[in-house]
């Protein structure tokens, strides 16, 4: 199981480092598959049918379906790479190390180490979450954000798998369903974004804001 965790961590570093969106999508797909295997590994002794179904659906959805969806979006919008993110790829890696440290610290702080949960998995999952958030914050392209959301979701999933032997799998399926529909909707919106704005830079989506507001002089001037 630790191998999987380590692989997950490495995949995140790869994500942080690469500007190519295709690569990113593949990495995410790989993560999905890894996570799909995870429950099987986690409950080595007795694998119930529920767990089988769970891992299969996970692999299918996170490893195949959603990446495919992403690729479709990518094809529609003729962009291929993340250009000039707010934090460069090199420095992103350094931040990545920092995030890893944070993940470790969080895991320790929460005393997840001396309980029955696999600590390394916890660390890697939290690392996934942090990296997901980090990428969302630092990259421009909307599609990258949805990818990052997937990464984060994977992290959460990892935590879940790590913590809960007996999480009712109906709920698990529900969660998966939600995630899929969510990402699907994102894809749909991405499509519209591309059509409306001819770009996918979220930092240009600032029409709705409260910054430029001094026209209505309501308080002071009126009473003065």
């Amino acid at each position, binding site marked *: 199981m630790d191998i999987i965790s380590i692989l997950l961590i490495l995949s995140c570093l790869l994500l942080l480092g690469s500007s190519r969106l295709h690569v990113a999508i593949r990495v995410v797909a790989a993560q999905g598959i890894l996570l799909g295997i995870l429950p099987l590994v986690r409950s080595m002794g007795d694998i119930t049918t529920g767990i089988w179904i769970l891992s299969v659906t996970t692999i299918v959805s996170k490893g195949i379906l959603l990446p495919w969806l992403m690729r479709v979006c990518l094809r529609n919008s003729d962009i291929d790479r993340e250009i000039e993110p707010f934090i460069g790829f090199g420095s992103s890696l350094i931040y990545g190390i920092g995030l890893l440290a944070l993940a470790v610290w969080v895991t320790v702080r*929460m*005393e*997840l180490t001396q*309980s029955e*949960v696999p600590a390394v998995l916890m660390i890697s999952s939290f690392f996934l*979450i942090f990296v997901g*958030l980090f990428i*969302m914050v630092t990259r421009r392209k*909307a599609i990258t*954000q*949805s990818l990052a*959301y997937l990464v*984060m*979701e994977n992290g*959460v999933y990892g*935590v*879940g798998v790590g*913590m*809960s032997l*007996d*999480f*009712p799998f*109906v*709920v698990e399926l*529900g*969660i998966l*369903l*939600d995630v899929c*529909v*969510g990402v699907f*909707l*994102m894809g749909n*919106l991405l499509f*519209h*974004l591309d059509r*409306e*704005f001819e770009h996918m830079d*979220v930092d240009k*989506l600032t*029409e*709705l804001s*409260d910054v430029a*507001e*001094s*026209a*209505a*002089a*309501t*308080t002071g001037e*009126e009473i003065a």
Partner: protein
Amino acid sequence: MLLLSIILLPTVAGTASYLIRSHRIRRTLWGATATAHLVLSIAAAMPPEAATLGHWIGLDALSAIFLVLTSLLFLGATVYGIGYVAREPVAPQPDVEDGSLFRNEPESVFTGAILLLLATMSLAIVSRHLGLQWVAIEATTLASAPLIYYHQNRRSLEAAWKYLILCSVGIAVALLGIFFILMAMQGEHRDLTLAALLAQAGELNHKWLGIAFIFMLVGYGTKMGLAPLHTWLPDAHSEAPSPVSALLSGALLNCAFLGILRVQQVCTAAGMAAFGGDLLILFGLLSMGLAGVFILRQTDYKRMLAYSSVEHMGILALGVGLGGLGLFGSLLHAVNHSVVKAMLFLTAGNILARFHTKDTTKIQGACGILPISGVLWIAGFLAITGSPPFGTFISEFTILRATVEQGRWVVAGLYSLFLLLIFVGMSAIVLRMALGKPQESRTREPWTTVLSPLVFAAVALLLGVYLPAPLADKLHSAAQLLGGLAK
């Protein structure tokens, strides 16, 4: 059985309305579903003892209040919405603000989404399993995103995107929280049903429960619109079509609030009420303050309403955080706020439809031009700022009493200060819009646009002078559920 039908009915109707071609049939179905849903939920909520269906789905006093409330609001939004979609043109139309052409979503998608939203909200309310509730709440996000994107123009697209991303992230965080609750339950048999949690609340691990609470507060708080996690809210609520905004502010926020209530309920049972309480008070004050700042010079009246929702979510959080009398006040306030806010958004829709602008500085003499909506606008303003004889006054005053009775002077001071600030801001805006010499001639308003706001206004007024016994009982027992003794 009743509960199941409450969830299934809108689900089926929703999926059906994707397929139905004829507008008339679809709209009839919509109306019928809404009415039936209201009837069913009232029937389900009436009996005093908690109705349950297995361990996973059930209806205690708390959820009963929210269920009926949601259903009522949905019916109101339906009456308004059917007329709304009927009036919306199908052909591409120029955008009122940037003039770019846009085409509305197909009506079938809209209707289906809104019905599914009802279904998911109902599920979120009646589910007594935290995981299931999480699934439902996430589902509400997904169901409401297309609604926000009904007018497929740039701003609504932007709003929908922000809504989807931020809420999904937030909800994901909440899921972490649920896992931590699972961690907190030592022992072999771990079960996330409320019953089980409350049963073994005693031996929950406080540390992990605390962490769980933080995660769920941040997660559901994002969905509920607590500052500074509220950032998506003004965009979404101002860009959505008015009936949808009414639902989002009036009903959907409550669902997220219920999520927080549940975990707070567990915390209280585990003897950690203070831990959650302090955080809730902090976020409550933060939300009120920030909302006040943004209302103060707002130029877009739908955004103003959205921020006022942030404010009131803050008040709710504050009340719950205080506990005791505050809980009762907070629940009562949830009811009042939903009704009033829905009414305000619907009225704002009428104003928008008449003046074709959201800019408050461009509107004057609404009372003269829209006799009913104009008056409703002022009445709604008074109601939402907590002036008698509207119910909000009672609840806000009750919460103030709670702060004072616990001797939290700072909280009481800030609370009053923020309420004052918001009153100043809103009064300046609303009065400028409503009063003054009308530039245009008086117009008649179709009944669909004014009926539900009028009804809501009447309800708000009624709650200000008289609290019906059944509702009072429900509120009291709900407050007791959360460990508050209601005076």
